[in-house]
């Protein structure tokens, strides 16, 4: 076996034995992403459902001014009306959660409605950080009353509902379901795999560069017959592999997570299944390759420069933020892949992944993005090689 292979094998063994890191890089994404995208919405809909159906007490002031409205509201399930409270004390009662809200009917309410005017109705509630459930439920109840009154008015005026609709728009969006879903939700996928690729490559890069300095093993390795380039390539191979695997597990996590979302319409599920096919996944994986090469080269350069693991960590952490921003571009609607954006590193990956998912990617763009990223990856690797050969870097005093 050649020396690159020997070094690669040893570093791989070394990293694979670090169970904790392995768990956080590879296993963790597959568990945490489904929890995030499947679990949280599930919990939220559960809470929302409960809030919309639980018993609430609503105080009414001026019930005598519109018995009709009162009877409509009290016909709604789980809304209990309370009549004998003072108007001044309402807010205190609501704050103390003794009642959930209140409505106030003005004296002239019914007369205004009957004389074709616009009557005012007051709703009082406390809404902060919840789902505004009380407000929504009251509005639903009151709208029932409003609709009744509207229908009455139209009858009195001898107008049919369609008389009030001079134009009806017929929509035809020629975008396929795949395009719509791919473009709307497709930004998430590159965001996930770009970040995971970085994080997955980070720990091995720190350990195999700065860690080697800190342990005092770099000297003996440099004094071995292995050449600098061989050492670099062996280490670099393991780091890229981990970045790549971590990115893949991020993608897997996203796919697993999709299965957990139960309350999405069947046709969207169908489209999602259409998107997840061999060609799409192969193209996405192809895009992950240059990203992991680039990240590994950059991370290893910093890691070789640092004197200790800790220093390396503090050097590398800011890069994390530098990557989040371009990785998020895919989630911003309106930014499209063109020959210019295809040349911006990471941004291009983020945008083209969206196109790949939407099925609208062109071969030309694919080639431009891939070759520009490969070129950048090679340049960064050449830089790392030059950097690793500098005595000032390796023996930085």
């Amino acid at each position, binding site marked *: 076996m050649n020396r690159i292979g020997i070094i690669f094998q*040893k570093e791989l063994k070394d990293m694979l034995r670090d169970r904790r890191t392995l768990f956080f890089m590879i296993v963790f994404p597959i568990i945490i992403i489904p929890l995030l995208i499947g679990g949280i919405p599930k919990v939220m809909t559960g809470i929302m459902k409960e809030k919309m159906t639980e018993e609430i007490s609503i105080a009414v002031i001026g019930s005598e001014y519109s018995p009709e409205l009162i009877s409509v509201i009290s016909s709604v399930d789980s809304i209990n009306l309370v009549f004998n409270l003072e108007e001044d004390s309402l807010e205190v009662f609501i704050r103390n959660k003794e009642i959930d809200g209140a409505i106030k009917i003005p004296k002239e309410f019914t007369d205004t409605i009957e004389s074709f005017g616009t009557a005012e109705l007051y709703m009082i509630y406390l809404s902060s950080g919840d789902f505004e459930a009380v407000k929504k439920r009251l509005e639903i109840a009151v709208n029932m009353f409003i609709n009744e009154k509207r229908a009455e008015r139209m009858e009195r005026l001898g107008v049919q509902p369609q008389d009030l609709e001079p134009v009806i728009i017929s929509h035809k969006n020629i975008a396929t379901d795949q395009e719509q879903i791919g473009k709307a939700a497709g930004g998430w996928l590159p965001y996930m795999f770009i970040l995971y690729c970085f994080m997955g490559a980070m720990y091995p890069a720190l350990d195999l560069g700065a860690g080697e300095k800190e342990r005092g093993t770099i*000297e003996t390795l*440099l004094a071995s*017959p292995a050449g600098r380039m061989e050492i670099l390539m062996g280490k670099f191979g393991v780091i890229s592999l981990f970045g790549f695997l971590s990115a893949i597990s991020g993608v897997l996590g996203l796919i697993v997570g999709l299965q957990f979302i139960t309350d999405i319409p069947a046709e969207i599920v169908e489209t999602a299944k259409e998107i997840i096919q061999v060609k799409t996944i192969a193209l996405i994986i192809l895009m992950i390759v240059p990203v992991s090469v680039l990240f590994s080269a950059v991370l290893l350069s910093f890691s070789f420069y640092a004197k200790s693991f800790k220093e390396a960590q503090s050097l590398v952490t800011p890069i994390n933020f530098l990557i989040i921003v371009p990785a998020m571009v895919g989630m911003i609607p309106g930014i499209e892949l063109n020959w210019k954006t295809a040349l911006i590193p990471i941004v291009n990956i983020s945008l083209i992944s969206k196109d790949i998912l939407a099925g609208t990617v062109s071969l030309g763009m694919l080639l431009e993005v891939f070759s520009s990223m490969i070129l950048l990856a090679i340049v960064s690797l050449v830089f790392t090689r030059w950097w690793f050969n500098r005595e000032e870097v390796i023996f930085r005093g």
Partner: protein
Amino acid sequence: MIEVQQLTKEFNLNRKQRKESGNFHTRKVIAVNKVSFQCRPGRIFGLIGPNGAGKTTILRMIATMLRPTSGTILIQNEDSVKHPENVRKNLGFLSNNTGLYDRLTAEEMIKYYADLNGMEPPKFIKRKSELYRLLQMEDFIHRRIANLSSGMKQKVSIARTIIHNPPVVVFDEPTTGLDVLSSRAIVELILRCRDEGKTVIFSSHRMTEVENLCDDIAILHRGKIFFHDTIETFKNQMKTSTLEEEFIRLTGGDDR
């Protein structure tokens, strides 16, 4: 055999170092200044000098980790700049802060270096069993290095250094910071290497160690060689009673 001719090493100073040096315009510092010496097989060569004299820089250049600014180093007749890989094949290197990979077992660690040195499996198996017996390592070769005592780790380091049976062995202050037992193990290793006819070079600032071990010495101060000959010649021409005092006398007593 190691032959060092007119060896010079300059380091560029960074901004911080320039500031600290007092003279901001000094861009370079000469760490090793036209040093020449010879280390012969079957003899122990001691490179002696205070901290900052340039010992580590010389040894790192011999091990091809650093490139000389000028001058030549021949190791087993191979030029260290032209054929660094051939030089490293003939070399074992051990320093006092040499570390090991915690997550590997002792045997994996040693095998890694055997593989890097291109040892054939039958040769490796024979050599490792020799070393395991000699260093009494059989009991722990399959344990992870993280779980070994410092004495055991020391043995792994020694085995790692000489697994490929190199004709030249470089020790950079090998005993600094070690307890008596560990130091003893290193001293035994140095003596064994000599008895096997290897060329041994080691650096130290402990005079008793130098006196007990060395056949030849070079005294280094501020990157220059003050004395280079056998230890007997040195002792014969001493003007003070101990090696330590003579060393201080020669170097003028200041440490920088």
